[in-house]
């Protein structure tokens, strides 16, 4: 009798989660620490368990891979690719084009230390690149930030759902630790969603043809298109902000963190509470749209101290400052180099800031 829980590595869980969500095509290029994603998919390719998984192709670099994704997704297929820092940089051109052409697909960035070649430890330094549009032009994507192997398994389905609902690329920003760690999970039973794609380019049989373009030479056409994208992003902002709170209802100081850092902060909150500090945790689950409403309501309720903990020199901290609208102080605890802060580090720094 097969037990329900499985002990799986983050990257593998993500790959299997994508398959269970009915992914049709995966275009690969290996880069540490994301390579287990294409390797798992290569093993499962042509398995009768995943009849929807029709295409696995290793491209010659990340540019090729993202453009293959654009092609497949333009026909309405569920396509995905995964990479890490240097490869994520290469994909920015493609993501910009896809955002303009409103093509839905998933891109996973397993964030390693950077910039440049960096090292293989976890960082959250691709936050700006992911959330502020790392490619040219004014666009946004939806960015999901899992913090457990369980979420690694569940988020591909959520990602595809959001991508097709709003016709946008969806990014998953995963820190390198989460990609590599193994945890007990239960694979969510996901009904594979079928998405309507009336816009797709599949051959204009008897119907009006579909043009998937991003060039609008006429200035008025370009303006209308940009306004359309703007209202789409506003709609996404209204509908899709996601976050999780822990012990915030009576908190005096709220830690703000995503990814693996949020789990260290959760432990720090417990230790602080045991020492009499009324700490809480606010965890963004979508980094874009940034869950500003949730943070603002904490500030409106009277919380005056926010401490952002992130693995970079300060990126999400600015979004928190904007969300809090000056009603409270926003400080930063950071860690670089691929290291994770210890719970003791965080507790100590919060105590120093509170005292």
């Amino acid at each position, binding site marked *: 009798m097969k037990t329900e829980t499985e002990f799986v590595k983050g990257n593998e869980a993500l790959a299997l989660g994508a398959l269970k969500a009915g992914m049709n095509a995966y275009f690969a290029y*290996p880069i*540490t620490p994301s*390579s287990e994603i*294409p390797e798992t998919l*290569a093993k499962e390719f042509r398995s009768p368990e995943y009849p929807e998984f029709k295409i696995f192709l290793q491209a*010659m*670099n*990340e540019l090729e891979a993202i453009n293959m994704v654009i092609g497949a997704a333009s026909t309405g297929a569920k396509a995905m690719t995964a990479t890490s820092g240097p490869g994520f940089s290469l994909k920015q051109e493609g993501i910009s084009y896809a955002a303009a052409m409103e093509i839905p697909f998933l891109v996973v960035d397993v964030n390693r230390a950077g910039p440049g*070649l960096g090292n293989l430890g976890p960082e959250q330094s691709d936050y700006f690149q992911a959330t502020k549009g790392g490619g040219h032009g004014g666009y946004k994507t939806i960015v999901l930030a899992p913090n457990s192997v369980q979420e690694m398994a569940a988020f591909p389905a959520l990602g595809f759902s959001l991508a097709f609902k709003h016709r946008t690329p969806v990014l998953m920003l995963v820190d390198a630790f989460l990609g590599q760690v193994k945890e007990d999970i239960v694979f969510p039973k996901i009904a594979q969603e079928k998405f309507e794609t009336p816009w797709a380019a599949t051959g204009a049989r008897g119907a009006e043809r579909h043009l998937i373009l991003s060039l609008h030479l006429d200035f008025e056409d370009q303006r209308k298109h940009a306004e359309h994208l703007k209202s789409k992003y506003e709609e996404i902002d209204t509908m899709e902000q996601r976050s999780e709170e822990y012990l915030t209802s009576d908190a005096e100081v709220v830690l703000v963190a995503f990814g693996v850092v949020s789990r260290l902060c959760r432990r720090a909150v417990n230790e602080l509470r045991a020492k009499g500090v009324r700490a809480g945790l606010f965890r963004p689950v979508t980094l874009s749209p940034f869950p500003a409403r949730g943070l603002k309501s904490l500030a409106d309720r009277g919380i005056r101290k926010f401490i952002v903990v992130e693995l970079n020199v300060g990126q999400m901290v600015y979004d928190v400052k904007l969300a809090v609208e000056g009603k409270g102080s926003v400080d930063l605890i950071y860690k670089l180099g691929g290291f994770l802060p210890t719970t003791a580090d965080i507790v100590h720094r919060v105590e120093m800031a509170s005292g």
Partner: protein
Amino acid sequence: MTTLQDKATGEYEVKLGRLPTLTGKPTHYCAGCEHGVLTRLIANAIEELGLREKTVMIDSVGCSVMAHEYINVDAIQSPHGRAPAVMTGIKKVRPDLLVFAVQGDGDAVAIGLLELIYAASRGAPITVFLVNNAIYGMTGGQMAPTTPRGMVTTTTPRGRDLKDTGPVMDASKLLAGLEGPSYVKRVFLPVTPMGSTDLYSARGSLEGAKSVLNAFKVQLMGGFSFVEFVSTCSVNWKMSVLESKRYSFEVLAKLFPPGLYVDKMGVEKK
């Protein structure tokens, strides 16, 4: 730390010795890897030409990412696949320098193929050494453009199927078809099995040493030089060191025949 093997009588001269162009740092390369051998051949050529203080090497991305730790010259890190472009930039402003890069089959033939083709087509006076071991080594054994049909890799777990993945790429033949390159050579670098004896030939190293020197001479004469070293990757091929030499000889040397493909300056005749 040296162990002097004997306290013999008489006076000895060093026929082959330590090179100032090597840092002496122990390498991270796997046991038996041709990257290590090539490092020695390059260090030897730079020393022979007396160009240690006029050389800039480019680290590419792959197993050779730390090559600067072993070769005692100035070094610049290039993004993955872009070494030929970086070297072109250097030579344009400093044509007096000797530049080279050691690239793997992923770096040069996959992600960096465009940069390689254009630098070669322009006849840029640079030198590219390709270590072709038919797999992505540093990232843990994924398929490369040079992986032979049927080889098991982590992204071709049931063996490479050319119908699914496209053809095996021959970098030397590709470059030889362009007008720009002055020297294109392919060398079988591993120790070569010789029939049924347990004796292996070192001719790969000797041919390799000459080819590295010739490649540098071509650059000094203003031409683009490229040497492809058919090699091995015992760890990712999941073979012993000697098994990997035999596999390379039996399969890769036939798929990628060694030889002199282009020699516009006649450097091998001199």
